[in-house]
């Protein structure tokens, strides 16, 4: 079996982002970037399935500027076999990303596509489901457990009410939750080896797809800030404030 795993390079989750004064977006110059956290889980799961012998090949793909290759190299260092970088210098909406991924799926013919459940920058939570719909494949979103069988995959999903178990036929799209596994760190020798692994390069423009964005960003603003509150001396004061001042008890 073969897995295609999608990794996105985003602003690191530890960075306190700053909104640009002119309302055009957030500052990204000199800001630390890293792989979208649940995408690390997607890579980890793909590589684990390869190590278990059920999967023969793992291909990592990222769509974005040249630096997106860093996220691909990281996946290669964890254990992916090959990288595909689809160069795109301006932003592409999830619909466009899904169209690009579909094109690559048609070429690479994977049995499964693994993605993160959401990207922590835009929090769109769409790409995997859109890709599945375009391919007419089933999907498993918010996945926290994977049990791969011959012709299907049994999945435990994290839903608002608790946990749900489903079984979907292969080929399928799987979007991964942070609780799916504990992503490993790449060792230095593996990082070195990853530099020699193949990386195919394509240009989004050359794929013959309609990638025009449909959503126009009018402005980006700071959310209203909360006023700093007070510290209370003890529990009795806390309860008294909640009852008499905030009137919530």
């Amino acid at each position, binding site marked *: 079996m073969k897995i295609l795993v999608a990794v996105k390079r985003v602003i690191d989750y530890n960075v306190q982002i700053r909104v640009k004064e002119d309302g055009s977006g957030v500052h990204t110059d000199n800001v630390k970037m890293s792989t979208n956290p649940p995408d690390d889980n997607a890579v980890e799961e793909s590589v684990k399935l390869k190590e278990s012998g059920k999967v023969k090949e793992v291909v990592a793909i990222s769509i974005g500027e040249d630096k997106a290759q860093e996220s691909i190299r990281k996946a290669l260092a964890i254990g992916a076999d090959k990288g595909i970088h689809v160069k795109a210098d301006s932003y592409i909406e999830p*619909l466009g990303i899904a169209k690009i991924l579909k094109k690559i799926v048609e070429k690479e013919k994977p049995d499964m596509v693994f993605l993160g459940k959401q990207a922590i920058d835009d929090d769109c939570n769409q*790409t995997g*489901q859109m890709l599945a719909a375009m391919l007419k494949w089933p999907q498993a979103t918010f996945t926290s457990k994977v049990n791969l069988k011959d012709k299907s995959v049994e999945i435990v999903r994290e839903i608002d009410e608790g946990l749900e178990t489903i079984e979907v036929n292969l080929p399928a799209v799987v979007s991964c939750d942070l609780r799916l596994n504990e992503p490993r760190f790449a060792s230095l020798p593996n990082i070195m080896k990853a530099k020699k692994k193949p990386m195919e390069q394509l240009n989004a423009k050359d794929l013959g797809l309609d990638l025009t964005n449909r959503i126009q960003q009018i402005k980006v603003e700071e959310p209203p800030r909360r006023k700093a509150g007070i510290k209370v001396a003890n529990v009795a004061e806390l309860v008294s404030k909640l009852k008499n001042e905030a009137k919530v008890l």
Partner: protein
Amino acid sequence: MSVLLIAEHDNTKLKPFTLNAIFAASKIDGEVHVLVAGTNCENVTKEVASIPLVKKVLWCESPNYQNYLPENLAPLVTKTAEKYDHIVASANTFGKNFMPRVAAALDISQVSDIIKVSSPDTFVRPIYAGNAFATVKSNDKKKCVTIRPTSFEPAEKTGGSAQVEKIEPVDVPNISKFIKREETKSERPELGTARIVVSGGRGLESGENFKLITDIADKLNAAVGASRAAVDAGYISNDHQVGQTGKVVVPDLYIAVGISGAIQHLAGMKESKIIVAINKDGEAPIFNIADYGLEADLFKALPEFLAELNKLNTIQK
């Protein structure tokens, strides 16, 4: 112009967030039609028909829709959407699961998780874990929108009498199968809609110690929340997680105990009306957003808190 809203229900009862979605949909356009798809779900159609903001109920019966498998539900929504300008659902695990499939089938760029309707084509949505608000305009002819339920009030439940129209199910692909759902059953209010939420973090140190949190929650008739660290450590189940990758809550009172206040946690609770933080580290970032901060050891403070609450007789049930 009219809006197609997809109801979430368990085949007997409507899920409360659908009411918030209906309210949001009515801000887009007054002509709100609600699709109720399921198995033996006639009661749900009646419940929806009595919501005054709903102008029409579309009822589709088929065993294929019982468990909301998105592979089955999305084709029905896509077909029904032909006559509508907006397709709307809640941005919870229900709406997030099937709506992008509908959008992709219609070649639409979905607008996810909106917190405000500025006009029928312009919406506000949080990005970067709520650290920025983006105003976006959809240039697609039809629009697929998911709404953040806690940012809109619930629609009135009674007084309406919308017409119920039966519609035919569509073919399903048979590529996915529902096996089971393990719901955490609880007598407590639902986390998403509770008036008071008491949340515990890594500071609780164990699942047994979470009793300190649940005792207070029961006293206050509150829901129980948790940080991701507490869920990952197995102190409590995943459906309690508050934050960017968990649930978003906007209660009147949020009490964070032994939670440091990482931005990913704040993303899920910082719109709460009153925030209380109990933490032994005076420098913990949670204090920057708390209305009332108590710097104390939780193992001492929580029993005292319970004792003080027991002295009050005014707690609303």
